């Protein structure tokens, strides 16, 4: 049974309740920063770290947080973590930090983070909450990177441009140029392109879900007695 709980947390975070695709939380950074894969990865990792740490902290002190002032407490915790991460990025990934600009401190306002603190970390133990923060952040980061890849291919005709911002000078070789003589679809880099690409990804996810549902519906007709006995 306990295996199942952790498995549920993982599938929830990565797929069923993906913060970007299902809950549609934190769209502001998602849409603003995902113009390239590396930008998306940078902000995605920062968000993931924040989410993991805040869930960890909130879960470990949840017994001492007064119910009436829990939201301000969460905000203070999140703000402290984000400030620490921002200073770390400024020190170690300065170029990327300059590209992401205001969106790193704005992680504070990402509703996915306070949402997980309120909905999960304040009600579950430390291990589960930390795992939840990690996979929720991972799900968010994966969408951010995927969106970044789509927009970058359409907008610049490359993948992983500017990788050196994150990984150091050697990583400039990582940039894959798909079309060297490409004018670029400016729309993909502008905000409307982000909305369209996100809509396409959500539609794709819903389609996959529906196909799976149809398949499992076919399977259920055989497994009905088993399910009813479990209930």
């Amino acid at each position: 049974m306990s295996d199942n709980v952790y498995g549920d947390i993982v599938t929830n975070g990565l797929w069923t309740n993906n913060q970007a695709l299902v809950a549609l939380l934190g769209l502001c950074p998602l849409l603003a920063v995902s113009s390239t894969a590396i930008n998306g990865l940078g902000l995605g990792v920062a968000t993931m770290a924040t989410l993991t740490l805040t869930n960890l902290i909130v879960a470990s002190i949840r017994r001492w947080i007064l119910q009436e002032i829990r939201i301000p407490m969460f905000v203070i915790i999140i703000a402290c973590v984000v400030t620490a991460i921002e200073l770390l990025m400024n020190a170690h990934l300065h170029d990327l930090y300059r590209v992401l600009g205001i969106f790193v401190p704005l992680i504070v306002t990402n509703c996915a983070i306070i949402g997980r603190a309120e909905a999960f970390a304040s009600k579950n133990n430390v291990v589960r909450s930390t795992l939840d923060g990690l996979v929720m952040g991972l799900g968010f980061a994966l969408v951010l990177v995927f969106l970044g890849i789509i927009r970058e291919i359409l907008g610049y005709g490359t993948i992983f441009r500017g990788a050196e911002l994150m990984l150091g000078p050697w990583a400039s070789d990582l940039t894959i140029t798909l079309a060297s003589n490409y004018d670029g679809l400016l729309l993909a880099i502008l905000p409307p392109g982000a909305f369209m690409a996100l809509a396409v990804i959500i539609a794709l996810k819903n389609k996959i879900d529906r196909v799976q549902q149809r398949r499992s519906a076919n399977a259920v007709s055989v497994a009905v007695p088993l399910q009813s006995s479990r209930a």
Partner: protein
Amino acid sequence: MSDNASTSQATSPFVPSSTSVGAVMRKVIYALIPGVVLYMILFGWGIVINIILASVSALLFEAIMLMVRGRPLRMFLFDGSAVVTAILLTLALPPMLSWWIPVLGSFFAIVVAKHLYGGLGYNPFNPAMMAYAILLVSFPLQLSLWAGPLDLIAQPLTFVETLNYSLFHQLPGAMAFDSLTAATPLDYLRTQVGLGQTVEAITRAPIFGLLGGQGMEWVNSAFLLGGLWLLYMRIISWHIPVAVLASIGSISGLAYFLDPAVFANPSVHLWGGASILCAFFIATDPITASTTPLGRIIYGLGIGGLTFAIRTWGGYPDGVAFAVLLMGLVVPLLDHYTVPKVFGARTDRGNQ
């Protein structure tokens, strides 16, 4: 609907209706023909090639989307709406373009702006203008290079040479693309006013003609005739065209009256750019325009005012597309608040 066998199981009253979508769209196409022919004569073959490219690809995308969505192919594919969209989109684009720009425009118009929103009758934005706006934002360079009127060009291209440019991006010999293009009157006006020239001096440039832009004024006059024919045939009502032209004319007239050195005279605004095409063909789109008489007048006034504002203070030389799209956003509100009183309704609470 009259030309569709599958809807013949009608109930009373048996009043024949001649206004099927197909019939309306055919008449709109007829009304556009004189302007398009003049455009071709005065500006070269590019417009014809673009219309063919855009129409064929629009029909193709329409067919694909109808098949994907499981809709009856025959009924929707040949109602002409895709072709009208393609022609209007093409008329908004510069005539000398690489082939993929009109095709991509058709994709955005038919697939994104029309079918993703639910198909004919459900699209909240004018598909042609939506596609044009997307292209303009995405490819600002290609969409700002307009072929000049043939009178002003030393060596006009033949049909084959134009086709060669469209498909392979090749010009004959050592010809530079710049020798084929000219600033549009509104573009020229905009940059020169920005440089501090007076409008009177600017409009003496060869690119300006009698009423508006050299050449384009006759194309627009032909569109005006076609539009008046549509009015006469009762395909469109008078509200939107009159409101659009009246607001552009009166606002630009007032501005010209107040400061003729900075603002162009009303005829440049009316016969330049896409004002007439917009008033009769674009803003009158039955799906995305307001449907009540008062709503249509407000809609038209808004388009005219926004067009003038974007031309004068905005970031682009012409503002018709953005004006139509912006007013398209307001249409549900306009329709909600301008519902005409039903005959016999009690007046004391009729306005709630």
